[in-house]
């Protein structure tokens, strides 16, 4: 050892390495998806019958938000090679080299276990179990199993995006009821036409990554037909909360009008099948679908928050 020259010029173990910044980890959580999850979960929590301490409500939403981020992070970890192939996703933290896959996996697992455990300990274990199942459904059933195999991936996999209001509801009640199932149904039926409209104008991206989305596998005419069918179904689902007495007439009337608007845009997508008009119709459909869901859930939130309830029963107004 005494003759060994220990001198070294290599003085920087991090040489040439871009360290992941806080912002990169934040991007792994898919903040835009997280916002939608937080909003729908909040609606589920507010419309649920029963009382919940404001602090417990805050913890519930926080845990649901963190778990949504964890699911997004694990999704990005699993799909980082596919993400590198698509224009829309190639700048994400992992394919761009800012975060290593192992870092993302560890980060996602810590957040998933942490959020599920915290919800169980501080709110209730039913909601916690439901939250764990939702993460499993999104990461394993949707991302790993359905998405690379079937064009129906978004139909079945869309359930994971529809669970948050049920979880928010379960944080208050500790169970599942018809009311929370109706909230689930609205998002569940809304997801396919929403995504297929997007697929119609970014189809090539998915084809490059070899993901079997409906327009690539069954063709655009079939996709337009399916969009139309699902839009009719979601328009009906949208008014069910009022018909079952869980929401007021303000909500019901608006849901009816918005549903008709949704159907109108779906018909435009169905009719305009070539050229710039087809792209425009698909983009309008996608934009309106976002507006539709946001307005419906905002109204539910407003009705229950401010007590603007004009509940309908068979004999009239109460």
């Amino acid at each position, binding site marked *: *050892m*005494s003759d060994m*020259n*220990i*001198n*070294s010029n*290599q*003085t*920087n*173990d*991090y040489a040439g*390495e871009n*360290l*992941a*910044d*806080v912002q990169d*980890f934040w991007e792994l959580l898919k903040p835009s998806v997280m916002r939608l999850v937080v909003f729908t979960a909040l609606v589920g929590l507010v419309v649920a019958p029963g009382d919940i*301490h404001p*602090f*417990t409500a805050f*913890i519930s939403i*926080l845990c649901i938000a963190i778990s949504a981020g964890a699911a997004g992070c694990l999704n990005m970890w699993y799909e980082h090679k596919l993400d590198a192939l698509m224009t829309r996703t190639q700048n994400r933290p992992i394919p761009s080299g800012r975060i290593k896959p192992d870092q993302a996996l560890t980060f996602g697992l810590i957040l998933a276990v942490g959020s599920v455990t*915290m919800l169980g300990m*501080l709110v209730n274990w039913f909601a916690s179990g439901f939250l764990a199942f939702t993460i499993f459904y999104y990461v394993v059933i949707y991302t790993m199993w359905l998405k690379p195999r079937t064009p129906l991936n978004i139909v079945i996999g869309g359930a994971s995006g529809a669970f948050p209001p049920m979880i928010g509801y379960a944080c208050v009640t500790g169970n599942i009821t018809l009311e929370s199932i109706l909230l689930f149904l609205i998002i569940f039926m809304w997801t396919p036409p929403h995504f297929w409209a997007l697929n119609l104008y970014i189809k090539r991206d998915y084809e490059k990554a070899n993901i079997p989305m409906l327009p690539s596998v069954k063709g655009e005419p079939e996709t337009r037909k399916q969009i139309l069918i699902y839009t009719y179904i979601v328009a009906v689902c949208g008014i069910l909360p009022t018909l079952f007495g869980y929401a007021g007439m303000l909500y019901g009337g608006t849901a009816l009008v918005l549903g008709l608007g949704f159907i109108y845009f779906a018909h435009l997508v169905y009719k305009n099948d070539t050229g710039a008009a087809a792209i425009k119709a698909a983009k309008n459909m996608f934009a309106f679908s976002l507006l539709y869901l946001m307005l419906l859930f905002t109204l539910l939130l407003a009705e229950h928050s401010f007590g603007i309830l004009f509940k309908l029963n068979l004999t009239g107004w109460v």
Partner: protein
Amino acid sequence: MSTEHPNFELNAVVQTEAQKKVIKRRNIAIGLVLGALAVIFFAATIIRLGANVADRTF
């Protein structure tokens, strides 16, 4: 291995200024998250136990 060896130079990690800033931001973020967790669990304990916090026997 002695640091007094004539040919020894400390092979330490030398971070660039940019890397130091990133690491500092990450440390602050981790600190804030841990602090928030401590506050959350303390607050949850007080809220759950309520008045029983003060009503204890030694």
